[in-house]
C-alpha cells in the first residue's frame, strides 16, 4: 500500500460511527471564530490592502495616494529590478534543485535504515532544522571568514584562498544550509510510504540503480518532491538576511528589494507590486505542483 503524504491529510471519516452530533454545529462556529478572525484580520485583509496598494499611485514621498495605475508593475521591468529578479530566480532555482537532489539522496538513505537508526538520523536533521535561522547564517561568517577554519585549512595545504565572506559562494552555501533540512522532511515522508518490496521487484526484474529510481521510487515520491520544491523555491526569493550578511549586499534577492522599498525608499506601491509578484509566483508553483500530482495520478 502506498501511503503518500497527500493522502494522509484527509481526515478520518471512515471509522466514525454515524451518530447525531451531541452538540449543535453552532458550537463549531463559536470555536472557529477566533481562528477565522485572526486569519481574516491578519492575513486576508492585509493581503487585500497590499494588492490594492500595488495599483495605487504615490506622492513624491512614496505614500499611497489612491488612484489606479499599472505603473508600479511596469517599473519592475526597469533593468535594475529586472536584473535582481533574474538573479533571484536563478539562485532560487539552483538552490531548489540542489536541495531536492541532496534531500532525495538523504531520504533514500534514511528509509533503508532500521527504525532505531531512522529515529537517530531524523533527530540529526531536526536539530539544525530547528536551530535559529540567524545562528545558522552567521555560523558561515565564522566558518568562511578571515581566520576561520576553512581558510586556516586551505593555507595549511598551501592553497592561497581569500576570505569567502562576502562572496557568492558563501551566499549559496548558506542558502542550501538554510533550506536543506526543510526539503528533506517531505521527501522522506513520501518515501517512507513506499513498499520496500517494490524496489526489490524492480531490481529482480533487471532494473539498475538509475532505472529503479527513475521509474519506481522517484515517481512514487512525487508528492514529497513537489512539497519540498514549494517550501524551497519561492521562500528562497524572499530571503534578505543571507545576501546582506554573507554576500556583502552586492547581489540582492527579491526579499532585499522588498525590505529596501518599504523601509528605506518608502515606495509602498512598488514594494506592494513586488510582493504581489512573489505571492503570484507562490500560487503559480502550488498550481503547477497540483497539476503534476493530478497528471501522475491519472497515469498511475
Amino acid at each position, binding site marked *: 500500500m502506498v501511503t503518500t503524504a497527500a493522502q494522509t491529510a484527509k481526515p478520518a471519516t471512515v471509522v466514525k460511527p454515524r451518530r447525531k452530533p451531541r452538540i449543535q454545529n453552532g458550537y463549531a462556529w463559536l470555536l472557529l471564530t477566533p481562528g477565522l478572525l485572526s486569519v481574516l484580520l491578519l492575513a486576508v485583509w492585509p493581503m487585500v490592502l497590499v494588492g490594492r496598494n500595488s495599483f495605487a499611485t504615490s506622492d513624491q514621498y512614496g505614500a499611497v495616494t489612491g488612484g489606479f495605475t499599472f505603473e508600479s508593475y511596469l517599473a519592475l521591468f526597469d533593468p535594475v529590478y529586472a536584473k535582481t529578479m533574474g538573479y533571484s530566480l536563478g539562485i532560487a532555482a539552483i538552490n531548489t534543485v540542489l536541495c531536492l537532489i541532496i534531500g532525495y539522496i538523504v531520504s533514500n538513505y534514511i528509509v533503508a535504515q532500521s527504525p532505531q537508526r531512522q529515529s537517530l538520523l531524523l533527530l540529526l536533521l531536526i*536539530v539544525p532544522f530547528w536551530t535559529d535561522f540567524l545562528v545558522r547564517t552567521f555560523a558561515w561568517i565564522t566558518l568562511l571568514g578571515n581566520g576561520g577554519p576553512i581558510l586556516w585549512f586551505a593555507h595549511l595545504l598551501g592553497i592561497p584562498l581569500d576570505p569567502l565572506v562576502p562572496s557568492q559562494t558563501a551566499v549559496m552555501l548558506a542558502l542550501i544550509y538554510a533550506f536543506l533540512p526543510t526539503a528533506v522532511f517531505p521527501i522522506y515522508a513520501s518515501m517512507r510510504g513506499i513498499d520496500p518490496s517494490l524496489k526489490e521487484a524492480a531490481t529482480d526484474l533487471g532494473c539498475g540503480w538509475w532505472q529503479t529510481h527513475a521509474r519506481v521510487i522517484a515517481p512514487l515520491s512525487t508528492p514529497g518532491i513537489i512539497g519540498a520544491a514549494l517550501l524551497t523555491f519561492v521562500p528562497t526569493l524572499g530571503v534578505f538576511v543571507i545576501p546582506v550578511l554573507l554576500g556583502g549586499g552586492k547581489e540582492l534577492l527579491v526579499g532585499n528589494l522588498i525590505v529596501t522599498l518599504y523601509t528605506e525608499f518608502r515606495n509602498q506601491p512598488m514594494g506592494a507590486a513586488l510582493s504581489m509578484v512573489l505571492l503570484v509566483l507562490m500560487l503559480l508553483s502550488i498550481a503547477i505542483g497540483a497539476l503534476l500530482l493530478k497528471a501522475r495520478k491519472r497515469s498511475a
Partner: protein
Amino acid sequence: MDRFLGWVTKLVLVFLYVPIVAVVVYSFNASPRTSSWEGLSLRWYVELFGDGPLLKTLQTSLIVGIFAAGLATAIGFLSALALTRYRFKGRAFFLGAIVLPLIIPEIVLGVALLTVFGSSGIKLGVVTLVLGHLIVALPLTTLIMMGSLSSLDPSLPEAATDLGCTPWQTFTRVLFPLTRSAMLASFLLSFTTSFSNIVISTFTSGVGTTTMPLRIYSMLKTGITPEINALGALLILLTLVIIFAVGLQQMRRILVGAEEKDQAPDAAPDTISLQTATTER
C-alpha cells in the same frame, strides 16, 4: 551506488553540523576577534550577561514569544477542536483558511501586516509583534492540535458531557489532560518560531521594541563578534532543550507524519503534519 550515496549522506550530515560546532567552539575563543584563536575562555558569556541593550531586546523577545505562543496555542486548540469534532459544511474550506498563512511568503505577510497596521493607525510595538507572530504560528499550532485531537476517542468528551460536565469541565478534566503533550509542543514550537523570527519582526517592531534577532542582525552588519557566537551557542542549547521537551516522537509526527505502525490497518490515515498541509494546498 547505494554505498556511495550512504557516504554522501554522511557528508551531508557533517555539512549540517560543521557550522553548529563552529559557533560553539568559537564562543569559547579568548581572542576579541574571531579571526584569531587565543585559547579557551568564558569571557564572552560573562560579557553577554552584561550587555544591557541586548538583554533589553531579550526581554522584548521573551514577552512577545510568550504571548504569541499562548494565543496561538489557545486559538489553535479551539480551531482544531471545531475542525476535528464537528462535521459541518465547508469544513475543508475552513481548514484551508486557518492554514492559509503557510502559503503566503513570510516577507509578503510582513509587509502586508505593516500596511494594515500603518493604515489603521496601530502603533508598532509589542502588540503588533505579538499579532504578527501569532498569525505565523497559528497554522502550526492548529495542525499539531488537530493531530492530537483526531487520535483521541471522540466518545471520551461526549461521555463527559453526558455525565453532566460543562464545556469548561470537559476541557479541564478530559480534553486538557489528554492533549497536554500536544499543547506543550504547540506552545514551545510556536514560542521558538516567534523567538527566532526576523522577517515578520522587521516589519512589525517599533521604536524601543527591537527583538533579539533584530538586534543580532544589526550587530552582525558591522561584523561578527565572539559575543554573538556565545549567544549563538546558548540559542543552540535552547533548541536542544526544546526538542527534548517536545519529544522526538512528537517532533517526528509534526514534521513527517505518523508512524506506519501506529495506524490501524483499516482506518483512514489520520495524520496531519506540517508538510502534508503544504502539499495539500
